[in-house]
């Protein structure tokens, strides 16, 4: 298939549901409507309303029910319509999904996927632009995954569905229809916990994920004329982090710039910087820099660009690091 991220995700869902009848989908408007972003389009027609469940608006209900279904042997995929609306279900995620394995000494596990579109840059309303991935990464027991391309989206979603742990699967809605790519129709998995070097380079490693990957790529192209050729790592899994790929790259380049659209304070960038300090401090030729969202509420569309890390801001970060 040559398709965009929405189509790749849709194919992954369909194929996994065909392959494994324990896989079920539940969420708001996922059935008749095919999801507000159309990721679940056509699945109700193929699999019926026992496996594709339109639920009332109740995030705690959706996630709590998914946990129960998982304990009973199913492989539920819960869709939260926007990341900003997960908070009524946060209790279920933090107090139960992440802990049941431990609480039952392995008797009960929670192999669920909680999919949610996240991120800014699409001129959306309040609470439709959040990227609070760090909140999830902070919780032991959760895996957190973010694709940045159609190919990765499919492979990562398949791996997430097959994983034995609760996976928070974040979909960068800015990239949903941003570009097409050849996506194999065959079944494939991208193992969770593996980052990918999406651009090989020298002298600087840019670490990013999701919708920041194309922003970083644009910035990297812009600095080529200055003789700077950054390496770019797309983390793909935010928890657990692929330390090896990060550290190897930084040992090779000697500099690191972390780009994320979430606010700076206690963002995942802080954790990554700490890891680099612990494992590659002596390789560093400049302080690790972060280019991030501001520590404010994501503004409404007209002012959103002041929040969002633009390629220009990333370029300034690159220069600052290189000129240190």
């Amino acid at each position, binding site marked *: 298939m040559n398709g965009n991220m929405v189509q790749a995700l849709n194919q992954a869902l369909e194929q996994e549901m065909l392959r494994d009848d324990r896989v079920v989908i539940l969420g*708001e*408007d996922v*059935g*008749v*409507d*095919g999801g*507000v972003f159309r990721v679940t389009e056509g699945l109700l027609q193929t699999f019926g309303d026992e496996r594709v469940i*339109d639920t*009332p*608006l*109740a995030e*705690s*209900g959706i996630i709590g029910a998914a946990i129960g279904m998982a304990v009973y042997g199913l492989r539920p995929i819960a869709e939260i319509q926007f990341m*900003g*609306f997960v*908070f*009524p279900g946060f209790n279920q995620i933090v107090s139960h999904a992440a802990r049941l394995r431990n609480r039952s000494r392995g008797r009960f596990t929670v192999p669920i996927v909680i999919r949610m579109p996240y991120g800014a840059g699409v*001129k*959306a*309303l*309040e*609470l*439709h632009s959040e990227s609070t991935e760090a909140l999830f990464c902070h919780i032991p027991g959760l895996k957190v995954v973010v694709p940045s391309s159609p190919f990765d989206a499919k492979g990562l979603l398949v791996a997430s569905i097959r994983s034995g742990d609760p996976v928070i699967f974040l979909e960068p809605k800015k990239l949903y229809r941003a570009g097409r790519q050849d996506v194999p129709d065959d079944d494939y998995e991208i193992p969770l916990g593996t980052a990918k070097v999406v651009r090989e380079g020298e002298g600087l490693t840019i670490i990013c994920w999701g919708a920041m990957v194309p922003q970083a790529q644009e910035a990297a192209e812009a600095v080529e004329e200055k003789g700077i050729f950054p390496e770019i790592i797309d983390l793909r899994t935010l928890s657990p982090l692929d330390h090896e790929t990060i550290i190897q790259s930084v040992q090779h380049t000697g500099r690191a710039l972390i780009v994320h659209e979430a606010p*700076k*304070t206690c963002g995942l960038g802080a954790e990554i910087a700490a890891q680099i300090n612990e494992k590659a401090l002596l390789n560093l030729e400049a302080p690790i820099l972060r280019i991030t969202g*501001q*520590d*404010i*509420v994501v*503004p*409404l*569309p*007209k*002012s*959103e660009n*002041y*929040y969002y890390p633009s390629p*220009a*801001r990333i370029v*300034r970060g690159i220069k600052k690091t290189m000129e240190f």
Partner: protein
Amino acid sequence: MLQILNEKGDVKKDLEPKLSKGDLKKLYSFMVTTRVADTKALKLQRQGRMGTFAQSLGHEACQVGSAYALETNDWTVPYFRDLGTYVTLGFPLKYWYLYWMGNEEGMHIPKEFNLFTITVPVGSQLPQAVGLGLAANLKKDRIGILSTFSDEATSTGDFHEALNFAGVYRTPNVFLCYNNQYAISMPRSKQTASKTIAQKATAYGFDGVLVDGNDVLAMYVATQEALNKAKNGDGPTLIEAYTYRRANHTTSDDASKYRPAEEVEAWEKKDPIDRFRIYLKTKGLWNESFEKQVQKDAEEQVEKEVRDAEATPSPPIEDLFSHTYSDIPQKLKEQMDELKAGLNEDDQ
């Protein structure tokens, strides 16, 4: 179901409220203004001059009739589909347009309005509305609090927690549910197995009333009774306003995917404005020239508000950083300065 005006505009005499001619004409003009402002917003959205928004088409009677029952000191806790409420409160529509245009200036709420912000997470405003009521009770203020929401909010945990509190503490709340039959694609029948939404109040220990939401008189009467009850210390009320969301959920939605056109057409015939026009006519309060005047006034008002909105620049960068905390911490100052310096650099 409480109905005073039926679909044909016939009135139930014994239930007719004692409203002056001026009041009746105002109710009409507020509904027309709401329709005009809503239609204008849709046009602006289509032209790329406004962002995604939730249309109020068909909700004019439940919004206007209920808000008309409010007194100056009462509070309103709206949700995201409440244009007629703003119109009726006399709220400067400029701000409403600015908000949906994505301009932060639209988040201002002038001090003279006891009006809460627009809440985006469905249902989450309801416990806060109860908090307003608890505080008013504590301060011995004789006020009512009108909070609006639609059918799907009743599926949330917050709805339950709010109404439970309200019942326990007998807060002066009026919970007004616009049962418009849909939550995006979810029909009301799949949201709750309850026969009515109004009946849910029984479980919380207070009254629930089912009202024809396309009948502005019934909406006014039911809301006023509930507000009076609240102010007399007789506790909260849940009102279910039975209506229909005739437009798409928002301008990003395509409702033809999940509901038949005939259903929408059937509800067009129950239009709240048409019905009230017939009533005014039989009372001798409506003629062509009145209609023209109302339309003209509405259009002029709306055009002016839109002009003012479009002439309002987005706030300066400082403004984006200054409403996060009571002060601006050092880290935010640094981020703001860095942003400004960067933007200057880009300009050069």
